[in-house]
């Protein structure tokens, strides 16, 4: 009979005798957890990508100041991509002797390729989703256009030379960006009507957007083909650059999904390590008999490896099925909160759940299985003979490598992976030494303790190595649970802070100094809030240390755009609220003129360092300033933010206007008309639509992350139970012996509870220290969140760990107390 068949038979016999149940359950939990999260995360990720694509209204967008280049259309058609075009420009509209600077957007028939538009037929009608823009000769306008120009639906609006009928009020466009063209009141028209407007002449300031959508592979091919051909005025839009507020939130959410997967993998790993260890120990006798019956070491290894692999495949298949069910259920629960068009589950991520399961199984089960081949045949005569434990370096090295590979797979960043692993492992080893010391020291206490305490502590001390392994397992599981809780809370808090209720949703620009007090009063009267007003001087960066700035930028450089247009320069005595100094000093104490604080990303792109001298041109004049500090700016806050902030006294003499941001509720929107009417020079940018769109996506991400956390928590608790159960054999045996010797039920109960309480308490403290270290590293290198120590966790985690672990232990050992000792011993 070949080894495979024999291994299968042994496996079936083991299964029938109940030997495999705990291992099988742990494995199924592990695979269910990792495949559910992998499937859920993948679906959410792809849904988010699609949604993200909606923010661009396509999968790939090229912005250009020139019309479509020959050959692009043919190439895209050849690759099977869908295409659309939009053209944006500003134009002054005149109706009923009223003037309005409007942002005109001409869209082709196919627009939008991703996402949808929304419009309504009247002021009071509900919005309708539309998959196409206006028909030829028609236009859709924002409601404000109607009130500003004294028009109503059905009226004619003349754009350039072309009269268009206003058919709808536009309420939503997916790719509305935060620039002048997009934020002036919108008029959307059909692309076919564009020539008739006669607005676009050579030299006109126009933005063309060429949009493409299709399968990832042809898109990538097209992108690769396109990139070398782009001229300096053409650029591929990127969500992270062009919609930083959305891009940032998505990146963090993606990272949380990755983190959740790692957490589940970690928890699963612990479960599998604990249960295979138990499985192995319970098979020492069988291995010894097999050796007696003539099995070679290699045959024993093959027999058990085959069993583990078959067991793994079975458990992974069942786990994948449950995982699939769990994510389907989760999606069902979240249905109303998630985008309507959810990406379907993918076979790839299902297979990933399977592969993850097999990899952790083999990674964590191999060391104990290797011990089985070391079992001496002599054990049949001398039962106390134990095989040598696997080398600690091998066990921990293998486990660390597996976790490392999985983290690397999620983060794609080797440096980050090694940092996380390094910090986690370093602190773990230190803490283990500490526990070892603590346990050794506790031995001295034994003679001074009463019977219950002595037995409880003795149980822990007798097998220090085993106790340390258990503490390690419990604390890693708890650490993983704490980590997902902390990161989840901080991430959600961060989002809430980023966009509080009543976050400013309108910007007012070009406020002249003499208008400032009046406008301040008007806005205050309406909003009851003191908005911050920033002076703005338009200027251009031209030199860095006397060298023209163009020398510092390449075609691909992200800072290129900043050198080609005027920047909004400001001055301030105090550091704006959401800014952080990363290098140098803010001029709080010594506000000398001639200093500038530069936004850090721009400084990186242009290789600007502290104390560099920057030359700016303002109108026909030039002046210089020394870089006094580098600043991190939270662009996603929707507050006025600046690349360059000068020290007071530097640029006040140049002509300047003011800008501010404020919150208007939907009912207060009409205020904008009176504002623009009273102060015709000012420009109002409305970001309320973008904000509400962003808020929706944040709310969806928050819900998804909460559920992911619950999933991780469930897995954690289940594994904690399984892990406690996996350590019971020795305790049951000891308990039964003590019963035989006359120990009372109450003594046994107290001893067990005490022992598990101590285990839980130590593991809890260890877990919280570990979690704090990993959180600090994670926040600093990966999630870019601010770390806040959470003191209540220091209390809650050790106490609840002690509670949960001792209750589980008590439950698992209740038979020892109730049943006759012989019966217990026979069942072992």
């Amino acid at each position: 009979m070949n080894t495979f068949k024999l291994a299968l038979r042994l496996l079936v016999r083991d299964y029938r005798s109940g030997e495999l149940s705990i291992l099988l359950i742990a494995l199924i939990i592990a695979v269910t957890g990792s495949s559910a999260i992998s499937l859920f995360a993948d679906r959410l990720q792809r849904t988010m990508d699609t949604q993200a694509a909606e923010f661009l209204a396509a999968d790939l967008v090229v912005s250009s100041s020139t019309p479509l280049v020959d050959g692009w259309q043919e190439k895209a058609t050849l690759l099977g991509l869908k295409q659309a075009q939009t053209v944006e420009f500003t134009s002054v509209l005149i109706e009923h002797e009223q003037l309005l600077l409007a942002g005109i957007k001409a869209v082709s028939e196919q627009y939008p390729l991703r996402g949808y538009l929304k419009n309504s037929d009247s002021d009071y009608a509900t919005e309708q989703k539309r998959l196409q823009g206006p028909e030829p000769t028609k236009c859709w306008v924002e409601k404000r256009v109607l009130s500003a120009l004294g028009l109503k639906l059905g009226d004619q609006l003349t754009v350039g030379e072309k009269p268009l009928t206003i058919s709808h009020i536009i309420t939503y466009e997916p790719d509305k960006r935060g620039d002048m063209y997009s934020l002036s009141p919108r008029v959307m028209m059909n692309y076919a009507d564009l020539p008739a407007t006669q607005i676009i002449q050579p030299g006109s300031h126009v933005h063309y957007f060429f949009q493409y959508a299709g399968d990832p592979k042809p898109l990538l091919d097209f992108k690769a083909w396109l990139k070398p051909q782009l001229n300096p005025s053409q650029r591929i839009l990127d969500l992270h650059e062009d919609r930083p507020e959305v891009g940032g939130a998505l990146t963090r959410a993606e990272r949380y999904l990755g983190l959740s997967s790692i957490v589940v993998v970690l928890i699963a790993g612990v479960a599998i390590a604990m249960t295979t260890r138990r499985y192995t120990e319970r098979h020492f006798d069988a291995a010894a008999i097999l050796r007696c019956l003539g099995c070679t070491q290699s045959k024993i290894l093959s027999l058990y490896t085959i069993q583990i692999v078959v067991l793994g495949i079975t458990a992974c298949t069942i786990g994948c099925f449950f995982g699939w069910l769990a994510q389907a259920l989760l999606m069902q629960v979240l249905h109303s909160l998630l985008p309507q068009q959810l990406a379907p589950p993918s076979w790839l991520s299902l297979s990933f759940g399977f592969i993850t399961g097999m990899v952790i199984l083999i990674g964590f089960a191999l060391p104990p299985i290797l011990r089985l081949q070391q079992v001496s045949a002599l054990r049949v005569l001398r039962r106390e003979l134990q095989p040598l434990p696997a080398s600690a370096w091998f066990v921990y090295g293998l486990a660390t490598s597996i976790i490392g590979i999985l983290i690397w797979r999620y983060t794609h960043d080797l440096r980050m992976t090694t940092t996380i692993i390094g910090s986690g492992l370093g602190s773990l080893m230190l803490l283990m030494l500490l526990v070892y010391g603590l346990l050794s020291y506790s031995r001295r206490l034994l003679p001074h303790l009463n019977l219950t305490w002595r037995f409880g502590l003795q149980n822990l001390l007798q097998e220090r190595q085993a106790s340390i392994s258990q503490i390690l397992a419990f604390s890693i599981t708890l650490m993983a649970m704490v980590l997902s809780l902390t990161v989840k809370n901080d991430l959600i808090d961060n989002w809430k802070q980023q966009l509080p209720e009543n976050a400013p949703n309108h910007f007012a620009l070009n406020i002249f100094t003499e208008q400032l007090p009046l406008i301040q009063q008007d806005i205050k009267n309406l909003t009851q809030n003191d908005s911050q007003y920033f002076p703005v001087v338009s200027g251009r960066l031209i030199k860095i240390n006397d060298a023209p700035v163009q020398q510092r930028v390449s075609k691909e450089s992200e800072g290129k755009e900043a050198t080609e247009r005027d920047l909004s320069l400001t001055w301030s005595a105090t550091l704006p609220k959401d800014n952080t100094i990363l290098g140098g000093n803010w001029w709080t104490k010594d506000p000398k003129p001639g200093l500038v604080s530069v936004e850090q990303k721009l400084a990186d792109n242009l290789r600007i360092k502290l104390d560099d001298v920057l030359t700016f041109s303002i109108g026909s004049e030039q002046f210089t300033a020394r870089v006094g500090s580098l600043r991190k700016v939270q662009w996603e806050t929707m507050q006025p933010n600046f690349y360059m902030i000068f020290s007071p006294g530097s640029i006040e003499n140049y002509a300047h206007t003011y800008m501010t941001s404020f919150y208007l509720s939907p009912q207060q929107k009409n205020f904008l008309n009176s504002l623009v009417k009273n102060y015709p020079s000012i420009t109002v940018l409305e970001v309320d639509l973008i904000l509400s769109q962003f808020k929706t996506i944040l709310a969806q991400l928050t819900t998804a992350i909460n559920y992911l956390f619950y999933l991780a928590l469930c897995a954690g608790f289940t594994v904690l139970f399984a892990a406690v159960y996996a350590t019971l054999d020795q305790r049951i045996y000891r308990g039964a012996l003590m019963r035989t010797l006359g120990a009372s039920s109450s003594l046994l109960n107290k001893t067990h509870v005490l022992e598990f309480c101590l285990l839980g308490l130590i593991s809890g403290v260890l877990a919280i220290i570990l979690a704090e270290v990993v959180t600090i590293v994670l926040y600093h290198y990966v999630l870019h969140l601010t770390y806040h120590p959470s003191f209540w966790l220091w209390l809650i985690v050790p106490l609840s760990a002690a509670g949960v672990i001792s209750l589980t232990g008590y439950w698992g050992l209740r038979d020892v107390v109730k049943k006759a000792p012989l019966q217990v011993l026979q069942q072992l």
Partner: protein
Amino acid sequence: MNCLIETRNLGKTVATSSGALHILTDINLLINAGESLAIIGASGSGKSTLLGLLAGLDAPSAGEVILQGKSLTALDEDGRAKLRNQLIGFVFQSFQLLPGLTALENVMLPLELSGNSQAKMIATEFLERVELKHRLTHTPKQLSGGEQQRVALARAFVTQPRILFADEPTGNLDQKTGAHIIELLFQLNLENQTTLILVTHDPVLAARCQRSITLEAGRLL
């Protein structure tokens, strides 16, 4: 008679915290094929260690064991395992049945290990010979001590080994059951022409063997 097992100056020493402990010293033995030999002696005299060395379950510290003309010392653990599978059967004081397996499966195991396709049939036949045909599907927990030892006997003889090692086979059984097991053991031994080497405290059992050797403090008397 031809010699099946020979030991030459066999010794076993283990290191303890208080120095080297000599469990066996200078054991020289000749055991012929078909012979039955009882190893007797007080607790701690080294009986089980000697049995372990003779069966190739352990490696000696000094001297050698020659089995069928081959030195066991020259073989590695896998080589010895192969030899065990071909030549040797075991019966233990604590039965050593696999707890999750039924009586039939326990007896089938050595046959399955050697790739015998008739395992089930042969195992059933042997269980019939130990009068356990009605207990085929019972697991060790469901069997009495005597029944467990009968399963162990069936398992030991099922491969028709040339040598059978028995370590206190009646040690865990009452007198009546023990006597029944002894009967069976010798009957099967006779039927299979096996060389029997057993370790025992039991003078009745030792007397059934053709020859007895006595160990005292690790030396042959």
